[in-house]
């Protein structure tokens, strides 16, 4: 614990900190460009110069200097001030100063620090260098003349992203950042845009769209995967212009995936903005809300509860699902389900469907068994944790399922459930590895749960967890990697078939035979719609996607940026999404649609405001009151032991860039699909 002084104030800091970190702890701001607390130290921008005694009589780069006992650090001396203006002057020599036409203008580190630490004018009259633009894919726009060679982007893509596409070639005045004219093949590539301290790397879809100061910023939650990344939605007027990550150490740190960041242009296209009714010719015609509700009421007259069913989609917030569940109960139906992919998840045991270890704790594990999961595309921000654990702590990873480039090394143990059984029996050598580990964990992906033996897999995994010491009082290494943002919340409120109810598969089967007469789809687009052709389909959602195409009545709802709502992420963290813009046209927030419909049906739901709804929700499920926290789940019995199939585990996500109605409507995601999905073997064969 070295003791040192920063500008005369004595402070004691932890071992192993740098001078820059010590200064931060002392509350002194040190300007920097290349240093970033989540990346390795480069020490090449020289902006963080400070005066250190004892030491040579010259300023030193504080980011790369270890804090030592008795150091006297001075950050406000004439020497430091002169050093900073000098560095700033050098950095600006080759910087174009085109701030008025730069997308970074207004949120630029270089701009801010030039104001704070630079000269008021320029003494440089010679020619500036110009650098040719580089192609970095459909997401990253480059104006490389602005680059100051901090190499943050290179370090991010290499260290966090785990891809070696970016590098700095040449040297000295000719140094350039390049990807050798190929796209950055990471699903986290968009983060280099945030990391870039200047306007060299900017967002391609957002280029010249808006200025940062004219945007209304709303802090909310992402729904593109089940991680529940904390995001900030920037809107101008009633239009979402861009999505940026928000800091949350427990969830997404300060990164988000490219889908979370760039799918927002899908919010402007293919929107359902008024109710529609299908006429006798099979054509959808615009209708009023009253006509739409009346059509549903007419259809429901005299229909018994067991002839109707409801399925919720992947992007729904808890409130609307709760309202729908109540409405279905009032209609006398137990045929409700949230598991569009037929994953055999048991709503009765919370530990059986959560990522119990917690996202942040996952990086502390020393052994990890991946079962039918590809976290790299199913939950990129869980994958960064695994990669971090592998890089820093030497986490050992075993894979049962398909081989992928996970961005870390792994032992491929087997392709399907049989290997799992061997580990559970203790006959596989990996069982000993798990037993010997201090903090072992396993992660079950949807690919392992959607097969015919889907219920037996969690049971076998539970056996592994119990026999190999994955579950202790202080550690729970049993994890399910959900991919749908709504799934954990839906399971929490029990949006699963009642004792006599039908699950998704049975609903579809009975809809084919005509036994189910009416199916209510709340944003459900991922099921085989051709099987619903006989049934009367009510689709409530925000995009004209698969569900809307078979619907007989369309009720336009709100997308995740257009409503307040509770989301529960895969680790069970309750988070509050906030409305950034209003739903388009006549579309309404989803719970209000269900409330209005219930009144028309004569089954009025017992709440009139969102607050009343949440009050009921909180009374019934108290853990929803604890926003931003994870309620640990008790270890219970779940899963049904049974015969394990010999079929290898599949994958539920074929194309990372298109998994839901919003990303399917996004032009940016379509461009990514063309550029990336065909390269890495994830293409369905119809791409490109």
């Amino acid at each position, binding site marked *: 614990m070295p003791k040192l002084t920063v500008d005369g104030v004595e402070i004691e800091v932890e071992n192993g900190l740098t001078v820059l970190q010590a200064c931060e702890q002392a509350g002194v701001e040190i300007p920097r460009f290349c240093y970033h607390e989540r990346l390795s130290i480069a020490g090449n921008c020289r902006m963080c110069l400070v005066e250190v005694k004892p030491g040579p009589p010259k300023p030193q780069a504080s980011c790369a200097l270890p804090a030592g006992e008795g150091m006297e650090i001075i950050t406000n001396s004439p020497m430091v001030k002169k050093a900073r203006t000098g560095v700033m002057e050098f950095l600006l020599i080759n910087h174009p100063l085109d701030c008025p036409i730069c997308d970074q203008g207004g949120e630029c580190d270089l701009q801010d620090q030039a104001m704070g630490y630079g000269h008021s004018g320029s003494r440089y009259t010679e020619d500036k260098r110009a650098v040719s633009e580089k192609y970095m894919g459909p997401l990253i726009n480059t104006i490389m003349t602005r680059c100051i060679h901090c190499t943050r982007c290179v370090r991010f893509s290499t260290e966090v992203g785990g891809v*070696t*596409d*970016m590098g700095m070639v040449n*040297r000295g005045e000719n140094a350039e950042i390049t*990807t*050798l004219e190929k796209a950055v093949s990471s699903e986290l590539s968009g983060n280099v845009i945030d990391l870039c301290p200047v306007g060299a790397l900017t967002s391609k879809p957002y280029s010249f769209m808006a200025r940062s100061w004219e945007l209304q910023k709303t802090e909310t939650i992402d729904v593109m995967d089940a991680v529940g990344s904390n995001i900030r939605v920037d809107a101008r007027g009633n239009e979402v212009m861009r999505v940026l990550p928000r800091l949350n150490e427990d969830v997404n740190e300060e990164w988000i995936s490219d889908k979370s960041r760039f799918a927002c242009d899908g919010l402007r296209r293919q929107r359902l903005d008024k109710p529609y009714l299908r006429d006798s010719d099979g054509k959808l015609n615009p209708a009023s809300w009253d006509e739409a509700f009346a059509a549903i009421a007419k259809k429901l007259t005299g229909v018994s509860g067991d002839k109707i069913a409801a399925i919720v989609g992947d992007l729904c917030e808890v409130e609307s699902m709760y309202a729908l569940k109540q409405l279905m109960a009032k209609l006398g139906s137990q045929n409700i389900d949230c598991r569009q992919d037929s994953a055999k998840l048991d709503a009765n045991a919370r530990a059986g469907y959560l990522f119990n270890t917690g996202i942040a704790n996952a990086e502390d594990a020393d052994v990890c068994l991946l079962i039918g999961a590809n976290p790299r595309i199913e939950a990129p921000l869980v994958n960064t944790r695994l990669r971090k654990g592998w890089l820093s702590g030497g986490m050992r990873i075993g894979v049962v399922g398909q081989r992928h480039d996970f961005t870390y090394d792994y032992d491929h143990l087997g392709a399907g459930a049989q290997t799992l059984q061997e580990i559970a029996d203790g006959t596989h050598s990996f069982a000993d590895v798990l037993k010997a580990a201090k903090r072992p964990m396993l992660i079950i992906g949807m690919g392992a749960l959607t097969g015919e033996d889907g219920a037996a897999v969690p049971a076998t995994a539970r056996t592994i967890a119990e026999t190999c010491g994955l579950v202790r009082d202080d550690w729970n290494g049993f994890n399910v990697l959900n991919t749908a943002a709504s799934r954990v919340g839906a399971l929490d409120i029990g949006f699963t078939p009642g004792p006599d109810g039908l699950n998704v598969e049975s609903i579809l089967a009975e809809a084919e035979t005509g036994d189910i007469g009416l199916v209510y789809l709340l944003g459900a687009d991922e099921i085989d719609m051709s099987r619903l052709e006989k049934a009367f389909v009510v689709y409530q959602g925000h995009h004209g996607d698969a569900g809307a195409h078979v619907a007989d009545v369309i009720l336009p709802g709100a997308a995740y940026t257009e409503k307040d709502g509770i989301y529960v992420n895969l680790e069970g963290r309750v988070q509050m999404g906030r409305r950034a813009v209003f739903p388009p046209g006549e579309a309404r927030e989803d719970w209000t649609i269900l409330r209005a419909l219930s009144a028309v049906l004569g089954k009025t739901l017992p709440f009139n405001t969102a607050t009343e709804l949440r009050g009921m929700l909180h009374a019934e499920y108290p853990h929803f009151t604890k926003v931003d926290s994870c309620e640990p789940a008790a270890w219970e019995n779940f899963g049904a032991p049974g015969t394990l199939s010999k079929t290898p585990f599949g994958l539920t996500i074929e194309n990372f860039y298109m998994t839901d109605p919003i990303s399917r409507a996004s032009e940016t995601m379509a461009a990514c699909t063309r550029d990336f999905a065909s390269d890495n073997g994830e293409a369905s064969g119809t791409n490109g």
Partner: protein
Amino acid sequence: MSDTFEFSPENLATAQQIVAKYPEGRQASAVLPLLDLAQRQNSGWASDAVMDAVARFLDMPRIRVVEVASFYTMISMKPVGKYLLQFCTTTPCWLRDSDAVLAATEEHLGVRLGQTTDDGMFSLLEVECLGACVNAPIVQINDDMYEDLTADSIVSVLKALKAGETPPYGTQIGRQTSAPDGGAKVLNDMTFSED
């Protein structure tokens, strides 16, 4: 200059020898010697295929090889002539009139720095200090240093090379290594006492 590159059998053996010098898991350290080896086999320049081959051989990302290759002037990323002339123009050489040596060369060959003669014989490159300042000005021609050059002597070296001869490398003014130009300058009148 071909689209593919593979180490010749003898270079492959050398390459394996070079890699063996580094600890297990640190093969990437061999990137510079291997690039040098490979570009010698590939008419003196590291094409994309050369860098790909080195990257594959060392199991390292291609961009990391490109970073190294582009950093050092001793790795050429463009085709070069049979003789690569590296002109030192750093202070000591410059003080000894390296400008004249360079100008004479450019005039004699009709090409500028960074260019190659049409017959594919000579490429001109400006480099920083070559570390032979005592014999300035110097030009490195492939692996040999030609020292104490003047506008005239560089032209005669070039003529000899063009004629297929190998002019003697080292000093061009006949002094012994880097001993003083024109013989000993001090201690010439040294006498020793009887005792």
